[in-house]
């Protein structure tokens, strides 16, 4: 059970049941849709970007606990950041959930996002944890295509 408890930590359950920053942004400058065909998770992200940094963010969509908590915590983590900073953060986050750099202490810089460490034991859930990030990056590039976690 401990691996499961590690995956479904209280903070993840809390954010999945009470996600923050849900909704739309009337004056969004950027937008993208994300979709994970495997489990049907969908996420829509609205951004307000000003001067290269993110002023505001909202999301809509339905997904599993991991993907909902991921997008909820993401919205809190990226406000005020630039695209470059977000890419670096996602790189670290990706390493965390895929179990790369296991003992490098990188997760220290991830703040609350470190709560997703348990995902590394569930390789099939990596896509749940990263869908929102792929969608965010697609929104920043204002890509028309629906973002997926497939490569």
């Amino acid at each position, binding site marked *: 059970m401990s691996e499961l408890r590690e995956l479904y930590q209280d903070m993840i359950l809390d954010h999945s049941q009470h996600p923050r920053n849900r909704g739309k942004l009337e004056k969004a400058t950027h937008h993208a849709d994300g979709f994970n065909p495997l*489990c049907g998770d969908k996420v829509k992200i609205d951004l307000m970007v000003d001067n290269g940094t993110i002023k505001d963010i909202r999301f809509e969509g339905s997904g599993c606990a991991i993907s909902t908590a991921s997008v909820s915590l993401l919205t809190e983590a990226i406000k005020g950041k630039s695209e470059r900073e977000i890419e670096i953060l996602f790189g670290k986050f990706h390493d965390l959930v895929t179990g790369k750099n296991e003992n490098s202490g990188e997760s220290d810089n991830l703040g609350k996002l470190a709560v997703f460490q348990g995902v590394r034991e*569930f390789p099939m859930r990596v896509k749940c944890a990263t869908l929102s990030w792929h969608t965010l990056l697609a929104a920043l590039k204002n890509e028309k295509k629906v973002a997926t976690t497939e490569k």
Partner: protein
Amino acid sequence: MLMPAKNPITSFDVRKVRKDFPALELLIRGKPLVYLDNGASTQKPSAVLEAMDDFYRSRYANVHRGVYELSEKATQSFEETRDKVKNFIHAGDRKEIIFVRGTTEGINLVAHSFARPRLQEGDEVLITAMEHHANIVPWQMICAEKKARLRVVPMDATGTLMVDHLDSYLTDKTRILCVAHVSNALGTINPLETIIHKAHRMGIPVLVDGAQAVPHLLVDMQELGCDFYVFSSHKMYGPTGIGIVYGKKELLEAMSPYQGGGDMISSVTFEKTTYNDLPYKFEAGTPAIAEAIGLGAAIDYLQAIGMESINSFENELLAHAREELNKIPKLKLIGEAFCRSSIFSFTIDGIHPHDIASILDREGIAVRAGHHCAQPVMDFFKIPATVRASLSFYNTREEIDALVRGIYKVLDIFG
């Protein structure tokens, strides 16, 4: 059907049967595998694996074209499966049995070679609200090409097809009606007799997607009278890579070929090609030879147990499962049709199916979470996904109980 069998099977011994399936002894992170994803694909009995292995080791050659003994033997073994399939589904003629890769390719073959040349602008193709993508997308594709209309027979909230309304969907523009024998997402068994009768009264041919029926029910082409019946080997304890299209001989004969190549022709010049007779007209190129041998062994295996025994045992299991699951708080069974096969889908309030399946997986329990290639069914029930457990005759009551315990763990974690 959901009623417990009248005579509990005495001859059917699930402990013994399980020994035939090596994969059922696997451990998943130390816990015994509880394999409840049989709707996606079934495990294989040793008899099937040994038949293929032995074929490759002692009789392998390409078929149909060799004049030496090894090739003749291979051809015989390959063609024997055609006869076995014919007998298994009670087709009238071995020529009516076409080897394809699986249900998906089978439906595409019929869409391409039967329906496409018969579709005019404004014509209609009729499917149902509970079809698998394999029985939706090929029809969408040819309807788009031919500017024909795809119409959908609705179902009700229990997941039962609204057969009473069928007549209003069967028009003089309907060129084919395509329906699943058993729904892979809901477990509903559709009333094919009524459906086929109504369609045939209007002169409309019927294709049945039998992917989820053949492994569980006695299937009889003479009784059903459908025009096409399509299914996959890998869902009926046979190997991957092979499946069957049954088609009525007159229809197959009138159809143009599907793929072009060797074996499907009788003579070729650059100017003119003459197609071969049935069934070869539809079997271009080297077929899935060893896979046919494996499918033959799977049919032998199923017939040795008997489809009636399989069906009654699975019905008992299903009844037990539904009874136990109905006791679980917040759990909702999706699909409550009266006539059902041993598939059940469910959701739990506030917990996403994906999370449920992940937690069950840690208990060694393999179930599916998702749309089960039936997104329109999910849309109908306004849910993103369900958890689906699909049973086989090799599953036990204890495995159902393990599933139930697993679900309680889910509830516990999500507090």
